[in-house]
């Protein structure tokens, strides 16, 4: 339940959604003009999911992400400076330039990293939850994954393991209804991905992923359950990506896969606009206050760009750094 006393939380939600939006607007632009290289998968349109879900977590709880994961770390509290620097492959980036866009991580705030391979991080998230349980801690682990990734075997195994071991895991499925160019209806046999929770005797709910508070409440209930030792849950957030799968991919399409109307319809349910309106309606803040938050977010991303651009490239001597904790003469092999 949302409480009037949570004003600062509600404003912080807006701020983080705006940070993600502006971060990814910048990322798409940078990629389009080849100022950054590699793949960029924009999270634009889906911000309420990461922000609502992470708002239910503590700093020392764990998350893992996927290829479309600039939003998750920002929602969890990562620095936009270091995230942006990573997109530039700079030494000041979270992964010192080793990871790039698809592999942000900040272990200091529980972000155990992102996987470019679908489903691959789910077992890792389950393992973090296992560690939490074995040490009698109450840390919760939250893997984010897409509708497409839900078809990987790793997903099944992870859910069953979490269920039989009653681990503190909240599986957050971001059903943006597409896997690259395929509609979820053609790839998943059930109506709601949350229906699959029944196969593991765990709660499964489908929630409006454009409503940050709805996500926050559904995920919050699952987190509370997990923290109380009652085991895992699956929360499916129905959302939408405004852009094509990855920057530049639109040009490669030989057949359209969705129509402009559909995109327009979803843009009318923009998560930031919805939350902004709710804040105004509820009298939580004035339009000026919200505009100021937006301006601050824009400034933070400008600063992040500046930070990233002026940061040094990694030095060739750093190539092998981080491969092992206790290095071997890897260049010998």
């Amino acid at each position, binding site marked *: 339940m949302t409480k009037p006393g949570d004003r600062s939380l509600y404003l912080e939600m807006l701020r983080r959604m705006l940070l993600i939006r502006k971060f990814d607007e910048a990322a798409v632009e940078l990629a389009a003009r080849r100022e950054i290289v590699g*793949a960029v998968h924009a999270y634009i349109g889906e911000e309420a999911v990461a922000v609502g879900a992470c708002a239910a977590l503590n700093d020392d709880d764990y998350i893992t992400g996927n290829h479309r994961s600039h939003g998750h770390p920002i929602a969890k509290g990562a620095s936009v400076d270091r995230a942006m620097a990573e997109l530039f*492959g700079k030494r000041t980036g979270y992964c010192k330039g080793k990871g790039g866009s698809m592999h942000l991580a900040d272990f200091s705030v529980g972000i155990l990293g992102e996987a470019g391979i679908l489903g691959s991080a789910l077992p890792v998230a389950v393992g973090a939850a296992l560690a939490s349980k074995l040490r009698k801690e109450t840390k919760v682990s939250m893997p984010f994954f897409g509708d497409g990734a839900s078809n990987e075997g790793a997903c099944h195994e992870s859910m069953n393991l979490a269920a039989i071991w009653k681990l503190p895991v909240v599986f957050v499925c971001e059903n943006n209804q597409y896997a690259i160019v*395929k509609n979820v209806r053609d790839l998943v046999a059930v109506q709601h991905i949350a229906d699959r929770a029944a196969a593991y005797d765990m709660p499964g709910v489908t929630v409006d992923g454009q409503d940050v508070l709805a996500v926050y409440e559904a995920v919050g209930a699952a987190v509370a359950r997990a923290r109380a030792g009652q085991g895992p849950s699956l929360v499916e957030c129905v959302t939408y990506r405004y852009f094509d799968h990855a920057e530049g991919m639109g040009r490669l399409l030989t057949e359209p896969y969705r129509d402009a109307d559909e995109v327009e319809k979803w843009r009318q349910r923009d998560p930031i606009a919805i939350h902004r309106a709710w804040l105004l309606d509820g009298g939580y803040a004035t339009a000026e206050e919200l505009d100021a938050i937006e301006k601050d977010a824009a400034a933070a991303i400008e600063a992040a760009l500046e930070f990233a651009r002026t940061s040094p490239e990694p030095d060739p001597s750093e190539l092998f750094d981080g491969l092992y904790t206790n290095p071997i003469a890897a260049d010998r092999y």
Partner: protein
Amino acid sequence: MAELSFSAAITEAIKHEMRRDPSVFLMGDSVRSGIYGVTGGLHAEFGDDRVLDCPASETGFVGAAVGAAAAGMRPIVTSQCAFMWVAMDQFVNQVAKMKYMFGGQATLPVVYRMGISYANSLAAHHTDRPHPIYMNIPGLKIVMPTTPADALGLFKTAVREDDPVLFCEDSTVMRTRGEVPEGDHTVPLGVAAVRREGTDVTIVAVGGMVQRSLAAAEQLAAEGISVEVIDPRSLVPLDTEAILASVAKTGRFVAVDSANKTCSVASELCALVAQEAFRSLKGPVQRVASLMVHPPFSPVLEKLVYPDEGKIVEAVRRTMG
């Protein structure tokens, strides 16, 4: 003779084989669309039943393809090697072993198109070069063309093979353009191509390394070193005779491979030559392969990982010296 890109040559081969044989069909991730290149547009001609988009369930569809082959179809599966790790059990235990384990009962005409993508700033999860790993598994045939003509000819051969073929598509050659013979051009498995003749050193280079080796050979020619460059075209079967014959002539050997160096194709070829052409060798064999590190995202760092012209030239000099 038409000029085609490497990628368009594969499209041509697929079309040709699908028209020729109704049991040939295409399956994989997003094959109807053109987002990974090659297969876009085929759906319009061949329809739903022959151009089948699959969910991200690689264990499921890699295995389904070989099951369909066992039941009489001739599937062509499209994927990236980076996504095939999740399906590794199906390759090792079904695709490669099924025929042998059942005393030869199965016939498994299936082609797995394996995109081998590197030097693209896609970071470690999307940048594998696992061909030596598949070579360690008996029961597979493995092809790695480097020219449009070979891509066309080898692809058609692969589809007509009654054994599973991994058709490796090196991302660094996908855009290469070149002449492609008219007619029903095919290229047999197990026959290497000599890309440049030479007398001082033999280089055997795999996939995209052929181009880099030719560039190195060019540079070395200026120094008076005559390099022969061999493109094996298929890794299994491998044209060992051509390789050994060349070394018998030159007396020096360099193997160039984009894969991680330890237990690479470069290691395999050097071992082969040092074992079977030892008496011809006038200098140490040389491996030029990727450093034993994951490809980092940073372009500044990533380019250090792979063999390049400079490293190949150095290796040739080492074996000369």
